[in-house]
C-alpha cells in the first residue's frame, strides 16, 4: 500500500476562491439594485436562482448518501469533492431568508384575503399559511444540515470499517428523511406558486433534476481541480466513465419522470390540471418548453451514449454545462410562467441573481476544499477506488 502524505494533497494557493467572491459581490450589488427597481421581478428571479443552486447542493447530498448506502468503493476518491459541495447547505439556509421576505410577492396563498374568498384554497389553509411555511423550511434545513454535518464529521476521522459502517447507518436513515423533506420542500417552494395545481410526482420530478445536476457539479468541480493540475492520478477516466454513466441514467430518469407528469395530465385532460401546462404552451413559452426538451434530454442523451464521450473530461464537462443550462431553464419554467403570463420575458435580474448565488456557492465549495486534503487519505478503500477499472 502506498503511503500518501497529507501535505501533497492539500490544495495549493490559487485565485479561484477570490474570483468567486468578487463575482458574487458584483452579483449581489446588481441584484440589490434590481430589488430596489422592481421587487416583483427580483423575487421571482431570486427564487429561480435559489432553487437552481439549492437543488444542486441537495443533489450532491443524495450522491453522498448513495455512496455510503451502497458501499460503493469507486467513488471514495471523489468523496471529499462531494462533501465540499454538500457544505453549501448552511449557506443555502441563510440564502433562503430573502424568499421569506418576498413571500407576499411570490406566493398567492400568503394573502389571507385571497384564501378567504376561494373555497378550494380555504380548504388548504391549514397547510398553506405563512407561519407553517417558515416552520417547515426550518425543519427541512435542520434535517439536511444534521445529515450533512454528521456525515462530514464522521468522514473526517474515517480510518476503519466501523467508521464506514456508521456512515452507512446514518445514510440509510438519512435517505428516508431526505426523500420526504425534499419532496415537501419542492411542494412548498415551487408547486405552491400555483396554489390550485397539484401533482403527486412533483417531488420526484424535482429530485431527478437535483440529483442529475448534483452529479454534473461533481464533474465540474473535478474539472476545475484538474485545471490546477490536481488529482491527476487519483481521479481517472475510469471515474469519469462511471460519473458519465450516472449522468446518462439520470438524464433518462429526469426525462421519464417529467414526461410521465406531462403525459398523464395531457391524457386525462382535466382543466384544473392542464392549466399548468397550458401556461407553459402559450406564446413564446411553447418554444421555451420545446427547447428545454432538446437541451435537457435529446442532446445529452445522444452525446452521453458513447463510451469515448464519457471518458473525456473536456467533453463531459461541456455536457455538464449544457445540463446546467437545461436545469436553469427547468427552474425558470417552473417559477416564471405564473409571473410572466403569455410570453417569456427575460430580465437582467435573472442573470445577476444567478451570478450572486453562484459566486457564493463556488466560494463556499472552494473554502471547504481548501480546508483539508482533496482525497480521504485514511479511508481503507482509497487505493481500491483509485485503481478501479470499468470492464
Amino acid at each position: 500500500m502506498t503511503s500518501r502524505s497529507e501535505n501533497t494533497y492539500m490544495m495549493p494557493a490559487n485565485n479561484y476562491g477570490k474570483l468567486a467572491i468578487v463575482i458574487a459581490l458584483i452579483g449581489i450589488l446588481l441584484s440589490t439594485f434590481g430589488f430596489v427597481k422592481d421587487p416583483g421581478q427580483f423575487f421571482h428571479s431570486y427564487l429561480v436562482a435559489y432553487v437552481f443552486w439549492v437543488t444542486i447542493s441537495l443533489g450532491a447530498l443524495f450522491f453522498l448518501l448513495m455512496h455510503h448506502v451502497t458501499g460503493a468503493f469507486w467513488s471514495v476518491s471523489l468523496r471529499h469533492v462531494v462533501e465540499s459541495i454538500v457544505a453549501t447547505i448552511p449557506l443555502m439556509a441563510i440564502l433562503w431568508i430573502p424568499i421569506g421576505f418576498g413571500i407576499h410577492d411570490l406566493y398567492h396563498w400568503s394573502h389571507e384575503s385571497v384564501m378567504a374568498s376561494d373555497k378550494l384554497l380555504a380548504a388548504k389553509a391549514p397547510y398553506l399559511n405563512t407561519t407553517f411555511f417558515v416552520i417547515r423550511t426550518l425543519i427541512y434545513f435542520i434535517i439536511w444540515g444534521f445529515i450533512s454535518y454528521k456525515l462530514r464529521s464522521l468522514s473526517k476521522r474515517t480510518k476503519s470499517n466501523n467508521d464506514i459502517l456508521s456512515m452507512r447507518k446514518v445514510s440509510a436513515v438519512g435517505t428516508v428523511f431526505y426523500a420526504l423533506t425534499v419532496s415537501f420542500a419542492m411542494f412548498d417552494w415551487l408547486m405552491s406558486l400555483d396554489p390550485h395545481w397539484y401533482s403527486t410526482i412533483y417531488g420526484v420530478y424535482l429530485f431527478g433534476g437535483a440529483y442529475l445536476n448534483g452529479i454534473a457539479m461533481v464533474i465540474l468541480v473535478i474539472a476545475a481541480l484538474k485545471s490546477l493540475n490536481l488529482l491527476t492520478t487519483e481521479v481517472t477516466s475510469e471515474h469519469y466513465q462511471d460519473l458519465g454513466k450516472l449522468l446518462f441514467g439520470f438524464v433518462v430518469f429526469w426525462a421519464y419522470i417529467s414526461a410521465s407528469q406531462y403525459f398523464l395530465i395531457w391524457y386525462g385532460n382535466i382543466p384544473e390540471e392542464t392549466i399548468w401546462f397550458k401556461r407553459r404552451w402559450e406564446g413564446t413559452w411553447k418554444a421555451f418548453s420545446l427547447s428545454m426538451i432538446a437541451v435537457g434530454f435529446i442532446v445529452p442523451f445522444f452525446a452521453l451514449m458513447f463510451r469515448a464521450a464519457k471518458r473525456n473530461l473536456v467533453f463531459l464537462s461541456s455536457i455538464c454545462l449544457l445540463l446546467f443550462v437545461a436545469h436553469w431553464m427547468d427552474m425558470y419554467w417552473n417559477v416564471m410562467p405564473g409571473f410572466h403570463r403569455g410570453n417569456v420575458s427575460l430580465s437582467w435580474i435573472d442573470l445577476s441573481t444567478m451570478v450572486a448565488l453562484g459566486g457564493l456557492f463556488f466560494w463556499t465549495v472552494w473554502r471547504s476544499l481548501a480546508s483539508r486534503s482533496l482525497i480521504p487519505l485514511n479511508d481503507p478503500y482509497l487505493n481500491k477506488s483509485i485503481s478501479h477499472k470499468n470492464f
Partner: protein
Amino acid sequence: MGNPVNMTNHKPKQSADSSAGAIIEETPLIAGNHTFSSITEKISGVIEGPTPKMWWVLFSFSVSLLLILVGSVGFLIWEGTGIWGLNSPVGWGWAIVNFVFWVGIGHAGTLISAVLHLFRQKWRTSINRFAEAMTIFAVICALLFPTIHVGRIWVLYWFFPIPNQMSMWPNFRSPLLWDVFAVSIYFTVSLLFWYVGLVPDIATLRDRAKTRGKKIIYGILSLGWRGANRHWRHYELGYLILAGLSTPLVLSVHSVVSTDFATSIIPGWHTTIFPPYFVAGAIFSGFAMVMTLAIIARKAFGMEEFITVNHLEKMAKIIMVTGLMVGYAYSIEFFIAWYSGNDYERFTFINRALGPYAWAYWIMVSCNVIIPQFFWSKKLRTNVTVLFILSIFVNIGMWFERFVIITSSLSRDYLPSSWDYYSPSIWDIATFVGSFGLFFTLFLLFLRFLPMISMAEVKGVLPQADPHHPMYQKSGEAHENK
C-alpha cells in the same frame, strides 16, 4: 431452514479487525471450495440425476391446479365473463388484479439480469437464471388474464396491426393497446435474453450428454457453441446491449400498465406518480417472489453454497428499499389528495382507509410498508426462516395493493347512486388459484430440464477465473500489457 453451513459464510466479516487500513473482507460470492469442475457437476447433476420423488409430488399438485385453470377458462369462454363477480361500477375485477400482480412479479428477473449487470453486481450470477425463468412464466400468467378478459377471444387478433378485409386498425392511442405491445415485447425480449444466457450452459449439457437423443437436442439448442473467444467477445457485448435495452424496457412495462389506470379520470387512478410508483411496487413484489422461490430451491436441491445467505440478504435490502418507495408513494398520494382540495380525491382516499374495503387497505399497508421494516435488523434479514415468511407477506400485500387500487376506486366513484360492493365469484378464485398451477408447472419443468443456476457465469466470478489474480503471479512472468 437456518442451515449451520450457511451461517459460517458470514464469519470473515467480523474477523477483519478494525485497525487502520483494513478493508471489510468481502464475503466470497460462492461458498465452499468450488472448482470449475465441481460447479458443473453440482448444477448439471440436478438435471442428469434421477427425478426426485418430491418433484413428482409437487408436479402432480401443480398440474392439478393447472387443470382447474383449464376448466375455469374453458367455462369462461363457453359462458362469458358473466360468470365472474363483475358488476356495474366494478367492470374490472380480479382478472385485472391478477394481471397486474403477475406482471409485477415478472419484473425481478429482467431487473436482476439487466440492471444489476449494468451496476456490476456480481452476486446476481447465482440467482439470475431462475429469476429470469420466473419472469417468463409470470409474464405468461399475466398475459392470460387480459386475453380471457376480452370475452370474445377468437377476435384477439384485432389487437395487432394486421391488414384485414375490414380495413380496421387498432387504436394506438389507447393504453390497453400499449399494454399489448409492452407486455408482449417484454416477454419476447426476456425470452431472448434468457436463451442467450442459456447457450453456453446448454453446450455443457451437450458435451456431457450420454445418449444420442440428448446430444442432438442439446446440440441443436446450443447452436454449436465452442466457448471460443471469438464467440465470447460478441456474446459479452451482446449481453451488455441486451441489458442496456432491457433496463428501460423493464421500467417502461409497469409504467405502461400504470397508464391503464392513470390516464383515466377516476379519483385514485388519475395521479401522476403512478408510473414510478408501479415500477417500484413491481420490483418489490418480484424480488419477494424470487426470494420465496430461491429459499425453496436452494433447500430442495442443496444449492446453499451458490445461493448463500449473503445473496438473500442483498435481496432483502432491495425489498426494503422498494418497500420504502411504495410507502412513500402511499403517503404522497394521501397527502396530495387532501392538498388538492378536491372533494372526490379526498373522499376516495378516506374511503380506502375507512370505507368498505378498509380491511384490504390495511392488509396492504401492513404487508408492504410495515413488514419490510423488519429488514432494518441484520439479524432478521440473515435469518432464512424469517426471510421466507416475510417474503410471502410481501407477495400477499402486493396482490392486495392492486385489489385496493382497482376495486375501491371503481366501486365508489362520482355518482353515489351507482355505488356497489364487489366480491369475486368462485370462478374468479378458481382462475387465480389455477394460474399458480400454470406458473409452478412451468417452473418445475424448468428446474428439471435446464440448469437452474448459470454455470458459465458462476465460474466467471470464482477468484481463479481472473487471469490477473495474485495466485497466478508467482508462476508466470509479469504481464507486459494489462
